[in-house]
């Protein structure tokens, strides 16, 4: 006859141990972890070591900044603000100026071109001028002289 299978509880996972030592489990969850720890001396020892270590770490003294730390930071900020004018950055300020410059250049260019066009001789098809009226010295066809009023 074989022995009845003994059910060994699954080891506690990392999340459970972290939350347990941090006191982040509900009372029911904490009780379940404690029941498991009662059956697992290795896990119990590990949790105890962790707690001892955390006590030491969390009891480290507060680290104080130098007494004049705040004054120095505020002075540094004032210097930074003094070198960088308030309001929009310089690039944004210069943007309208750049656009305006381009517009002025365009307008000047157009005016110049118009002036040039006005001065340039017309080079298109020559308009046909009517022939000058010559005095009717020659006899008209048919031998009649034209009637001059």
């Amino acid at each position, binding site marked *: 006859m074989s022995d009845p299978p003994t059910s060994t509880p699954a080891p506690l*996972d*990392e*999340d459970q*141990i*972290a*939350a347990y*030592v*941090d006191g*982040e489990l509900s009372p029911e969850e904490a009780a379940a972890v404690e029941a498991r720890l009662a059956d697992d001396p290795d896990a119990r020892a590990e949790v105890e*070591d*962790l707690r*001892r*270590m*955390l006590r*030491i*770490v*969390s*009891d*480290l*003294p*507060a*680290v*104080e*900044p*130098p007494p004049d*730390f*705040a004054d*120095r*930071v*505020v002075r*540094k*900020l004032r210097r*930074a603000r003094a070198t960088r004018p*308030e309001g929009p950055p310089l690039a944004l300020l210069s943007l309208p100026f750049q656009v305006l410059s381009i517009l002025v250049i365009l307008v000047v260019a157009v005016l110049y071109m118009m002036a040039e066009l006005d001065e340039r001789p017309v080079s298109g098809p020559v308009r046909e001028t009517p022939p000058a009226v010559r005095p009717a010295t020659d006899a008209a066809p048919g031998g009649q002289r034209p009637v001059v009023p």
Partner: protein
Amino acid sequence: MTGGASGATTPEGADQRKAVGAPRGGRDPFERSLVRRLQRQAPRAFEELVRTYQHRVFGLVYRMLGDRHEAEDVAQEVFLSVFRAIGRYRGDGRFQTWLFRIAANACRTRLRQLASRAAHRAEPLDSVEDVAGASANPPVAAQVAGPEAAAAGRRLEEAIQRELSALDEDQRLLIVLRDIEGLSYQEILAVTGLPEGTLKSRLHRARLALKERLRPYLS
């Protein structure tokens, strides 16, 4: 490398650290008011910001870098970054969490720079940290009477800082935020950007790593 360390820690320890500076808890009216005034660039708002949060920011940065001189420099940069970026703070989370995220990023950047500098000097970064740790920490054991106890406390504090500095920087950040600065899990998630499912396991592994390193001091 180190600024005058004398008197830089206070004997009240964690209790005092957690009481100093910013109010804890939900998004309180103080934070909201301060943020509004900072965004309007109201006179003295920045000074109030620095005076309110300097202890917590400096503490976080010092524990991450292990060196007072570097910590002063980085903490200053953190506050100037906050001032420059305050217009982009939308108030979606706690201001203090946003501030800590800036501080944590600044620490990561500085640690990378220090590692790179140490590599160029062909000098292990650990030795930089050792020097910093050895000279930066004033006595922890002002709490304990007697020069021997004070010396033992100082050695222990130096050892903790040294072993903390030897941890991987992500593990160190989790230990500092949770076990030294006392942030909640939710706040740590907001600072680190870790997925919710991984925080506790990573924190546990970080603690195990530190516990192994501190084993000689735990007995």
